């Protein structure tokens, strides 16, 4: 795995390498080198399979992180390729030429995060939310609770209880407090 990443280093600028597990690595790349790097990973380094792609909203840094998880059948190892893109003009190169099924993920990301993938087929068709008019709902500055209360007629009288406290009050009054778990960093 390390050897493959070293070979990738000769091609593109790898900003960061994180080893989560012997067969799970995450690398961070620059956005404009992503398609070249993924093509090299797929065709030369044998990461044939795109398991999924997803986005994370870093609202504080004003960035989206896209993760492309690719899999190597010979090493039986996963490699996550992260790129950070700007949150305001969120747009990324489409990779549906490398992996055909990526169009579906890109369509979902377009709908849920508003990340555009120019050239990706059917990218602006509604994926699950027909007739959606607000901002993309998975962006963290979208207040789902307020939207739900505004739109979907909440039933009054809803109570929320902590399950443990509730069970202690209702059924098991003598249940001891759980022992404090000592964490390694304390």
């Amino acid at each position, binding site marked *: 795995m390390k050897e493959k990443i070293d070979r990738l280093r000769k091609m593109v600028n790898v900003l960061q390498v994180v080893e989560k597990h012997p067969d799970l690595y995450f690398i961070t790349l620059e956005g404009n080198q992503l398609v070249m790097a993924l093509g090299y990973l797929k065709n030369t380094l044998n990461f044939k399979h795109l398991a999924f792609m997803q986005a994370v909203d870093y609202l504080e840094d004003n960035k989206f992180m896209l993760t492309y998880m690719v899999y190597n059948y010979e090493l039986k190892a996963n490699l996550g390729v992260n790129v950070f893109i700007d949150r305001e003009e969120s747009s990324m190169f489409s990779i549906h030429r490398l992996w055909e099924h990526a169009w579906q993920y890109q369509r979902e990301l377009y709908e849920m995060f508003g990340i555009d993938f120019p050239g990706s087929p059917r990218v602006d068709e509604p994926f*699950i939310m027909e*007739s*959606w*008019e607000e901002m993309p*709902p998975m962006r963290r500055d979208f207040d789902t609770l307020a939207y*739900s209360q505004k739109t979907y*007629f*909440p*039933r009054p009288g809803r109570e929320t209880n902590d399950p443990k406290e509730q069970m202690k009050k209702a059924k098991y009054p003598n249940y001891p407090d759980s022992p404090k778990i000592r964490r390694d960093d304390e």
Partner: protein
Amino acid sequence: MKEKDIKIIEKEMKLANEGLPEMERDLFADDRPSRIEPLNKYLEQFLNWARARSLWILAYGTGCGAIELRPLMTARFDAFRYGIAGRPTPRQANVFIIGGYASLKTIKRIVRSYEQMQGPKYVIALGSCTINGGMYYDSYNTINRIDYYIPVDIYVTGCMPRPESLIAGFNGLKKKIQAGQCDGMNKYADNFDWYKANQKQIIKDWNMPDYNW
């Protein structure tokens, strides 16, 4: 004009079918739903007795609760012994089970299927999500109360309710039918404008007839 007269005129108005393209409007009906008046008292009692013993579920799983309908039919729970059977088409079914959460995309299909069922028709709302949103109460995509969009006859609480609770719900429905209290279809016909307004408030790309029989 009296308020009663206004109501009657509203009832007689045809539906606009504005969601459909101009050329297709003729193909769909523009009548409003009408009430079913009960027949002769004893005949109605007899029919209710038979209706309570022959419940045909619409085989349309809307959400995770639909998984509870499968064991209902197998050897362990055997709902067929109560006369509960599945039907593949809304034309023939008379019980609609809303299986849990209904998302924006599903509620459109639920409304269409419900309107296509021929009355008397009954709705069982299964799971907490149909009552107050359940664990999805703050979701952007899940409606909180199903009874704002279609009339509900009986609720089964739980997340998820087991098939036993569903059978208990069916027994409750049977008692209501036999007592002649299940008039969801008449409720829908009477408050048609209110239901339609609620439906159109969340289904913004309304591209179907206003009422499909």
